[in-house]
């Protein structure tokens, strides 16, 4: 490890309603691989976005190669030698490898693009990386692993001195990960500073020199990797004080019947052999890190995405769910994590949204009974305490919390008994959050059964009667609320994948 190339000190960044970074410190040395860890929403990505000029910091300083710097966009950061290799690859599939690497700074011969030179330069880059990729191949024909190598080559062609890898291994096979590590070690030899963001403990141990842990937008600490254990890191990641009272015991009656049983559900890479049971009046928390496959499980269960296998039983009876239509028929309602895209019809009124799932009950002959529709909508506006000037208000004009209530109303109007809440409080402010929690508790007490997918540890511990933990498409644990701790959940959520 050499001298410090990059220092971020006291970085502070707020978004409306969220203190995303609270005086965070971070440094990278030449010739080190520095892991950046933390739960979802800990602020890792935000910190890197501040570094590369995507976000402007509110205060704090960034020192790079001995000078204080401030980048205004990724281009400036790139030109200075700081490059991110993104998790989602930013490649144009229909262009060749060489064309992608030099996109935006093509070599020219007169006013013509000099493809030959780009191919030659790409070859040189791949040689230094000791990888074999044909620069004239079409990008979309490469595997994800190879595409990522191209991203790295592109980064190096910018004469990068600091490379940030944002969860680079998420989509790679074992073999590809090994190749990636070989390249990273090589880059370390060449004295580059490397930031490695990942959730995989085993990788952190193998490839990194130091680990910096963040939690809820704050800097927790930095450890030397070879001197610390997985437990040390987990403790730093979750060691928060929980202000809201966590649930201490399950509120489900011991003899409550099983309303939903899922056996060996499979749907692609993200849902592998997932089985669980849901009981009447229960709130079943689904915990896990980003990309654990929780939303995919819910969507497969709901029939929104095709499944490749598995059985679903409702009230003991085996059912076939191949479409959302089937799911709704069997009394399952799904509240998406992305309300605007999947939950509500924003430019329509509360009435139209509330009865969308069960218009059949509001027909008089072939016609919609608008009076009856309005009555039921207003009943639920009152019952859920939705804040709106009237039932004919367009949903787009409501706040996030109230939009969520409209989606809840939609499923209550349909009289669904099983509700899947996917990140129920995402993008909702604190006050409205508590209302949604109260509402969920009330629904459970009234005998509705709830699956709650949440990335917020406090939410999981506060709401769930039982917790299912997932990691990379597999169920890795099932924990009764009486035994649940942050450490235990995080341990299951980051299980080493061998």
């Amino acid at each position, binding site marked *: 490890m050499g001298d410090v190339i990059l220092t971020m000190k006291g970085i502070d960044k707020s978004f409306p309603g969220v203190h995303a970074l609270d005086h965070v410190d971070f440094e990278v040395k030449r010739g080190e691989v520095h892991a950046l860890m933390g739960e979802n929403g800990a602020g890792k990505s935000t910190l890197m976005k501040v570094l590369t000029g995507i976000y402007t910091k509110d205060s704090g300083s960034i020192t790079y190669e001995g000078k204080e710097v401030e980048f205004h966009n990724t281009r400036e950061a790139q030109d200075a030698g700081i490059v991110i290799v993104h998790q989602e690859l930013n490649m144009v599939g229909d262009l060749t490898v060489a064309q992608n690497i030099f996109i935006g700074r093509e070599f020219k011969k007169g006013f013509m693009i000099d493809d030959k030179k780009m191919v030659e330069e790409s070859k040189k880059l791949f040689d230094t990386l000791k990888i074999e990729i044909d620069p004239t191949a079409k990008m979309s024909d490469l595997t994800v692993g190879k595409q990522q190598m191209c991203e790295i080559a592109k980064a190096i062609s910018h004469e990068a001195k600091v490379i940030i890898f944002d969860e680079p291994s998420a989509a790679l096979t074992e073999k590809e990960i090994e190749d990636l590590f070989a390249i990273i070690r090589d880059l370390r030899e060449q004295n580059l500073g490397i930031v490695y963001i990942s959730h995989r403990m085993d990788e952190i141990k193998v490839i990194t020199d130091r680990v910096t842990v963040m939690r809820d937008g704050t800097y927790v600490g930095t450890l030397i990797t070879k001197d610390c254990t997985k437990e040390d890191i987990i403790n730093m990641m979750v060691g928060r004080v929980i202000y809201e009272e966590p649930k201490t015991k399950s509120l489900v009656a011991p003899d409550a019947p099983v309303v939903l049983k899922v056996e060996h559900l499979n749907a692609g890479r993200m849902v592998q052999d997932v089985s669980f049971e849901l009981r009447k009046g229960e709130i079943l928390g689904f915990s896990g890190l980003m990309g654990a496959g929780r939303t995919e499980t819910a969507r497969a269960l709901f029939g929104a995405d095709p499944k490749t296998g598995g059985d679903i039983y409702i009230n003991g009876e085996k059912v076939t769910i191949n479409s959302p239509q089937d799911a709704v028929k069997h009394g399952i309602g799904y509240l998406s994590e992305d309300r605007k895209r999947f939950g509500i019809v924003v430019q329509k009124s509360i009435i139209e949204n509330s009865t969308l799932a069960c218009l059949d009950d509001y027909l008089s002959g072939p016609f919609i009974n608008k009076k009856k529709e309005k009555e039921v909508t207003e009943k639920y506006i009152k019952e859920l305490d939705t804040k709106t000037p009237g039932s004919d208000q367009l949903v787009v*004009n409501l706040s996030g919390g109230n939009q969520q209530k409209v989606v809840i109303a939609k499923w209550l109007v349909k009289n669904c008994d099983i509700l899947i809440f996917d990140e129920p409080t995402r993008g909702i402010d604190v006050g409205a959050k508590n209302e949604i929690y109260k509402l969920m508790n009330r629904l459970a007490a009234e005998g509705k059964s709830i699956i709650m997918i949440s990335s917020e540890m406090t939410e999981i511990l506060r709401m769930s009667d039982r917790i299912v933990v997932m990691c990379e498409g597999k169920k890795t644990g099932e924990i009764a609320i009486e035994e649940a701790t942050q450490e235990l959940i995080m341990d299951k959520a980051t299980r080493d994948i061998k």
Partner: protein
Amino acid sequence: MTKKKQSIFTSQKFIVLLVVIGLMIVFSLISKDFRKYTTLLSMLDYSYYDVLMAIGVAFPLITGGVDLSIGTGMVCYALAGGYLIRFHSWPVGAAILVSILFGCAIGLLNGVLIAIMDLPPFLATLCTCMITRGLGSICSGSFGIPWPIANADNGWFHSIFKITLASGTKIPLGFLWMVLLALLMAFVLGHTKFGRYVIAIGSNKEATILSGINVKFYHVMAYVVCGLFAGLASISYANAIPTVQPGTGAGMELDAIGGAIVGGVSATGGYGTIIGTLLGTYVICLLKTGLPYIGLQANWQQIITGLVLIGAVLIDILKKERIKK
């Protein structure tokens, strides 16, 4: 938060109505000939097929799609019906039924291609546009086919659109049907499950699917309704045009689509009214009929119609942006 209630006077329908009245006044003031009752009668005769196509195409438009096959389709259905009357001595009533069902069938084909096989609407209906043009030529053996004229034995269908009183005064009965059909379809759009889902699909298809609705079925039905109206349009086309020519019809869909959009149907889906569509189509028809009377020939009509459309689409975009804010 204040309650936003759109006043009738700022609604697009009302503005378009003013434009219709304004155009009639302007043309009447400038041209003596435009003021004649026969001009009005002729304009109405030639407006019905545009109106019917526009009402039909409003449904695919509101789902966020489009149907480009209605123009050539209409000509094709009229040729098929005319062929049966002329060469197989079918009764006119039966031929009309065949024309309408033919329209429904092509609508169904469009719907299946788009809603079930996931073809982009533009492409799918461009293909059926070509197919119907070819089918029309085959039906007619590449010859123009006249439907029976008004005073022929089996020319009764003309009286659906225009009747002559004992005094010799001609009454454009068709206009009444247009208004009634528009009111009926406005009711279908605003007060039935089908209409509600058509709007929901155009507004947010994903959310509609996840609400457990058989989106594919209603999506297909939007195109079937469009085909049905193209079938109806073929009858009014046979009424207006002495001889239906194969190979024509391409481009006529643009007047109908333009009319719907001028009338406030969102070009990107999710919003639209049938009464607005009716009025918007009359803006286009008035421009088509009126501009020659004030000395602006065909090329100018197209340019002006194009400009009016740009204006209407801009209003639509501004409206959406205002809602977003």
